[in-house]
């Protein structure tokens, strides 16, 4: 480390004389350091914490401005609200699971499947865009593909004589919407798992083989245990991502589809629930669910950090 005697003209050092601290005196935190972080925290307080707290606070407010648990209870008792949460949770679980599985396969194929290097770069950049592709353009793209007059629908009908809508399939359902959501779930999985897969060192595979193991052993005892926290953590991230999605669902069906985000958006725009406290309670419910998922994600991330340096 730099000799302490030469760090004398550093104006930010606290007066320590020539004592030998573990760290050079010039780098000890002083009050001036807080200048750097205060704007950040002030911003977070005003535009992140206070609005969120105001939501929490007002969920317990009745139209007469008294304290009430009615709004929160309504979430568990009113059918349309229960259905909204159920539908949102369903889509989130489906797309988290599906996104995690196929996204992982895709990432694995591109990174470790022996495909040309250029394909990996191609998929990574594409994933960067696709994970942001949402809302009206995405909705339309899928309507134009598997909607009533979609490209695939018509192709299947003319070439295979098979009308997918006769089987009752419609894109305007939980499953249909899930298929659309995958468009940004797969890329998200690919982007986040790529570094994790990079962290799987070749030596481990070789060591496994040297000891007489095959692919199954490698995966069962080495790769999957290492990747599992990352996989699960990312799956949770996907869950949260789908749960909070608004623009895409709205672009499809406006308020015809009953999801929590749509309900909240409708509440902002038109007081359709005739009760502002209820809107806040819905938002509170979302915050709770998302907090739990983020906590899970953080915990799993820390467990991964052991292996991926």
């Amino acid at each position, binding site marked *: 480390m730099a000799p302490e005697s030469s760090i004398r003209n550093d104006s930010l050092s606290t007066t320590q004389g020539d004592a030998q601290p573990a760290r050079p005196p010039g780098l000890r935190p002083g009050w001036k350091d807080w200048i750097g972080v205060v704007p950040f925290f002030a911003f977070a307080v005003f535009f992140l914490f206070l609005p969120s707290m105001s939501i929490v606070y007002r969920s317990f407010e009745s139209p007469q401005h008294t304290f009430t648990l009615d709004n929160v209870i309504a979430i568990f008792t009113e059918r349309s609200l229960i259905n909204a949460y159920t539908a949102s949770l369903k889509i989130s679980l489906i797309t988290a699971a599906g996104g995690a599985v196929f996204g992982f396969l895709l990432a694995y194929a591109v990174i470790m499947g022996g495909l040309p290097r250029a394909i990996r770069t191609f998929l990574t950049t594409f994933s960067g865009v696709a994970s942001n592709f949402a809302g009206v353009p995405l909705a339309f793209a899928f309507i134009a593909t598997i909607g009533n007059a979609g490209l695939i629908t018509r192709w299947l009908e003319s070439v295979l004589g098979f009308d997918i809508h006769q089987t009752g399939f419609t894109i305007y359902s939980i499953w249909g919407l899930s298929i659309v959501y*995958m468009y940004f779930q797969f890329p998200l999985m690919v982007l986040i798992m790529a570094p994790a897969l990079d962290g799987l060192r070749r030596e481990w595979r070789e060591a496994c083989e040297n000891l007489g193991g095959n692919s199954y052993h490698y995966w069962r005892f080495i790769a999957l245990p290492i990747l599992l926290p990352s996989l699960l953590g990312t799956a949770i991230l996907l869950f949260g991502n789908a749960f909070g999605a608004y623009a895409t669902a709205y672009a499809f069906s406006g308020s015809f589809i009953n999801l929590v985000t749509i309900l909240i958006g409708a509440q902002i725009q038109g007081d359709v629930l005739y009760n502002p406290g209820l809107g806040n309670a819905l938002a509170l419910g979302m915050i709770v669910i998302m907090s739990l998922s983020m906590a899970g994600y953080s915990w799993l991330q820390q467990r991964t950090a052991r292996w991926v340096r």
Partner: protein
Amino acid sequence: MKRGASIWAWVILIIGLLYFFIPLIATFEFSLRAIKGRYSFEAYRLAFMDPAFVRNFGYSLMWCVLTIIGSLALVVPAAYWVHLRMPRLRPVVEFVTLMPFVVPAVVLTFGLIRLYGAPPIVLIGSPILLIAGYVVLSLPYMYRAVDTGLRAIDVRTLTEAALSLGAGWGTILFRVIFPNLRVALLSGVFLTFAIVMGEFTFASLLSWPAFGPYMEEIGAMRAYTPQALALVSFGLTWGSIGLIQWLGRGVPSQGQVGGAH
């Protein structure tokens, strides 16, 4: 062991590519049908001729610039100081950057409107709320980019070396640290750009002109041109991300992930 491409890798890749590109092709095919009976680029021509396109695109560009400035101003000093001098604050800062995932855009807008829509603090008439919303959205990605960049360069050694050579803090920050963060900062900037340009929720619910709501409005009012625009914007974003990759070659990979939906 022979490491040639396995057949399964190709199968998965092809399925993935089909899933991603068929909807894009369907949109493209539709956008070419503006003139009855034959394929043409009429929709594209009309899309660019619309004055509202230029106006809304311009607004979004302005929001982008303001957001990037705000985001950089908040994140870079905080990340640097936490990294260098207050590592104990790191978990707190990281928690803050995870908050935007916990509070989705819809919910945050709701809270912002209720809190700042009425006295004592009325912000609803000015774009401050919108920019604040965008900065919140971009916070996780900007922080992660800067943080990754700071980890990749040895900040401590650089700072100490500069200090030992007699540099003041100003010089250290602007002539030693920032140039080394160039790629990380660019990556954060481009990501913020991609997010703000396509953002819909905040702009729409707060009623500000921007490209996202514009896309939705013309989507509701016209046929063919909105689809053309959607593809153009997809291409432009892909281009900018490709640019990051190219600029960032040779630097340890930084995770770039998706935005609000």
